[in-house]
């Protein structure tokens, strides 16, 4: 261990590697409900070359490497389940290029969402990226690689779909490029080449370390608005979403309903965000959005809620701080959610699961969905807990586990799933698919050093 520690020091400098109890304590846990798992070291490289040297060392010594961005995934994916090192990538946070005309940004993987947003506002005010509602220190790399979604997911789908290509260090130390940048100086798309980017997306850091990535940018409109559609009938929501997404005029659509220990408290709300270059265009879009759900307004089963200016301003915030504030719901500093990806048509079914689990566990369940394009949604079940009370954390963990299973039964798939939920997904997975995953992994990572304990059966 001492030898590895010294070599790490040689690579990144003594101040950026630690085996001290303080770092091992913090890096062994995230803010969710998964139990701590301590690394032996924490290391913070500053360049692709340093990442490569660390990986070569880890490979030679058979030491696990757990890549970490913001560490905000909540489901414990950056814990060192089998020891080894957590590689905190946030020193690699350079914004390398913004291509105005072809609308993309090339960044190092540890670049924070918030810093990229501020940079674009300052230097390229006509452009923006799709920011998630995660705390703004979340990294672009971490978010894209887990198939995140955000404020432009109506336009561009999952953030992984907004990826143009990347540079990655393989578990065996080679530096590879995927997408157009592998054959051109421009980082403009993944087409028309074999799509190797998929080797790193959704894998929870088990296939390599992404060091740079190019993501799509979109017009930042000067005029922006939000509307809230309300209906008392949960069964209607899927069709409302179908109609709204069909307009292809919006930037973001989310739907929310909370359930306080089995009791549904508020009408489901659908929040619609859209932007325009002129006031006239904004009005035009507003009218068309309204027209798409006119049927429900006419038969009085739904309607748009009046929005006071302060509420409208809150709804236009990106990232929205409210999801973070949920952590203080019980004055307890904690929540975790099952984010499940599922088709829009399952909205009511997904909701019913949430109510049942809330009743069964006697736990509040805040449900929300972000609609991805016109095709599917990330339906989330959020359970808050008081971090200072072990039994409360256990309750949330159990409710999460049961929710993961119920989601799978319904036909959805848990997103950024905890290690135990990954095992449940594997149970539902076509065996040949899982076999292919394993074959790819054994080719890429013959020594099994990358974030071991994830996407495994045992």
């Amino acid at each position, binding site marked *: 261990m001492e030898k590895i520690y010294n070599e790490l020091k040689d690579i990144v400098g003594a101040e950026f590697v630690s085996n001290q109890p303080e770092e091992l304590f913090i890096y062994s846990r*995230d803010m969710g409900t998964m139990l701590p798992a301590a690394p032996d070291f*924490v290391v913070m490289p500053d360049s692709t070359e340093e990442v490569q040297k660390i990986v070569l060392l880890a490979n030679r010594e058979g030491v696990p490497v757990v890549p970490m961005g913001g560490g905000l995934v909540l489901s414990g994916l950056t814990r060192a389940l089998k020891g080894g090192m957590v590689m905190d990538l946030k020193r690699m946070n350079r914004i390398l290029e913004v291509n105005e005309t072809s609308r993309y940004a090339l960044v190092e993987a540890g670049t924070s969402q*918030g810093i990229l947003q*501020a940079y674009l506002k300052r230097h390229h005010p006509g452009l923006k990226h799709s920011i998630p509602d995660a705390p703004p220190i979340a990294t672009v790399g971490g978010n894209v690689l887990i198939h995140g979604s955000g404020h432009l997911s109506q336009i561009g789908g999952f953030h992984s779909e907004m990826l143009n290509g990347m540079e990655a260090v393989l578990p065996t130390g080679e530096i590879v490029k995927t997408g157009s940048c592998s054959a051109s100086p421009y980082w403009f798309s993944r087409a028309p080449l074999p799509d190797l980017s998929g080797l790193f997306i959704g894998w929870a850091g088990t296939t390599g370390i992404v060091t740079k990535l190019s993501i799509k940018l979109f017009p930042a409109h000067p005029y922006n608005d939000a509307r809230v559609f309300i209906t008392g009938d949960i069964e209607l929501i899927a069709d409302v979403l179908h109609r709204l997404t069909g307009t292809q005029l919006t930037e973001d659509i989310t739907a929310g309903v909370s359930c306080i220990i089995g009791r549904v408290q508020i009408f489901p709300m659908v929040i619609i965000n859209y932007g325009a270059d002129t006031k006239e265009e904004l009005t035009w879009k507003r009218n068309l959005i309204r027209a798409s759900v006119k049927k429900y307004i006419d038969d009085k089963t739904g309607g748009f809620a009046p929005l006071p200016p302060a509420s409208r301003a809150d709804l236009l915030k990106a990232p929205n701080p409210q999801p973070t504030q949920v952590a203080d719901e019980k004055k307890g*500093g904690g929540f975790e959610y099952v984010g499940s990806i599922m088709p829009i048509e399952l909205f009511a079914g997904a909701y019913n699961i949430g109510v049942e689990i809330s009743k069964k566990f006697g736990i509040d369940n805040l449900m929300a969905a972000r609609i991805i394009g016109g095709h599917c949604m990330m339906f989330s079940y959020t359970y808050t807990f008081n971090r*200072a009370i072990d039994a409360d954390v256990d309750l949330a963990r159990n409710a999460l586990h049961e929710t993961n299973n119920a989601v799978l039964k319904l036909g959805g798939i848990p997103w950024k799933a905890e290690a135990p939920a990954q095992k449940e997904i594997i149970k539902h997975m076509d065996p040949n698919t899982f076999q292919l995953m394993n074959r790819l992994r054994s080719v890429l990572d013959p020594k099994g050093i990358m974030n071991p304990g994830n996407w495994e059966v045992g």
Partner: protein
Amino acid sequence: MKHEELLHRCFRCGWCKLPVNFMDINCPSYLKYRFETYSPGGRLWLLRAWLTGDLDASDRFKEVLFSCATCKNCVEACGIPGIKDHLVDMIIAAREEIVNTGKLPPSIRNYLTEIYNRGNPFKKPQSERGDWAKGLDVPVYNGQEYLFYAGDVGSFDESGIKMTRAVASLFLNAGISFGILGENETSDGNDVNALGEKALSEHLAVNNIDQFTKRGIARIITLSPHAFNAMKNAYPLLGGKFEVYHYTQMLNKIIKDKLPLGSFKARVTYHDPCYLGRWNGVYLEPRNILQSVPGLDYMEMGRNMNSALCCGGGGGNYFSDMLGSGQDSSARRRVREAEEYGAEVVAVACPICKKMLEDAVKDEGLENQMRVMDVAQIVIEAKRKQA
């Protein structure tokens, strides 16, 4: 520990690492060290682990604890409204616990010992405290309208002294009725309090309150935002109720009528001191002064007002130097930011910021293109042109 009941409510979500405008990392200790442990949330989680017995108060733990600059960026940016106002209070409360164990990091122990023994941390005799005023004709306080309080750095540090003299000359020039305490002045206790030495900070405060009261002082102008903060916010809790101004507030009042100015031709930006800005909401007065100077080309850095990056000298770090060195020390990052925005002069309003940024300009090799000047020095230069 005070505020212990709030510790577990930190979600460790990290909003506090960035300023409210997200422009760059804005917690000085996280910026320098980069481990999660040195971020505001990491620090709070470590504190909790220490209180629950999961961690010892090791040297590293103390470094984490004492490297907080008490800059309040986290207070401004925290994602949890229910705890944000108390974040720095929690850190100070934990420092208090460590102080009570008597096992302090050496640099902090030395600082506190010097203050205890001599009334200042510069290892200088009190008799030299008023020497900064030599040759200036500054009267000793004797019933004038204002006490001008120079403070430790303004009295003993070479760069601080220049600033104190600049402010005093402007006040003299404008005919402000003021006096100083000279060798009878003692430390204000602000940074002693930030370091968790509550008993000593209260002792200093009570002494000052006593002295001010005995001398019939009702109005105080401070050079340093740190003293301003102590006298404005802490002294009243101990019975010391004075009208307290930071010198930029006073200068702002008189600049138009009493100080005719020539021009000062340079591109100038302003660096907000934490104890003036985030701690006390004084943002506009210094800007107003600068913008009143003819010829001065004023511009803001991206991180300004409540998003300003601390110089790294607050919370006792000016003396303990836990944040001073290295490429990513916040002072160096701050002057690089000023450079990026094309500033020729970084205007400051705090003697600690002044020294920290001056050193950073040297470390960055920017001496030929950038000057750090306090607001009063800029006004003086403009006045000279007028004369």
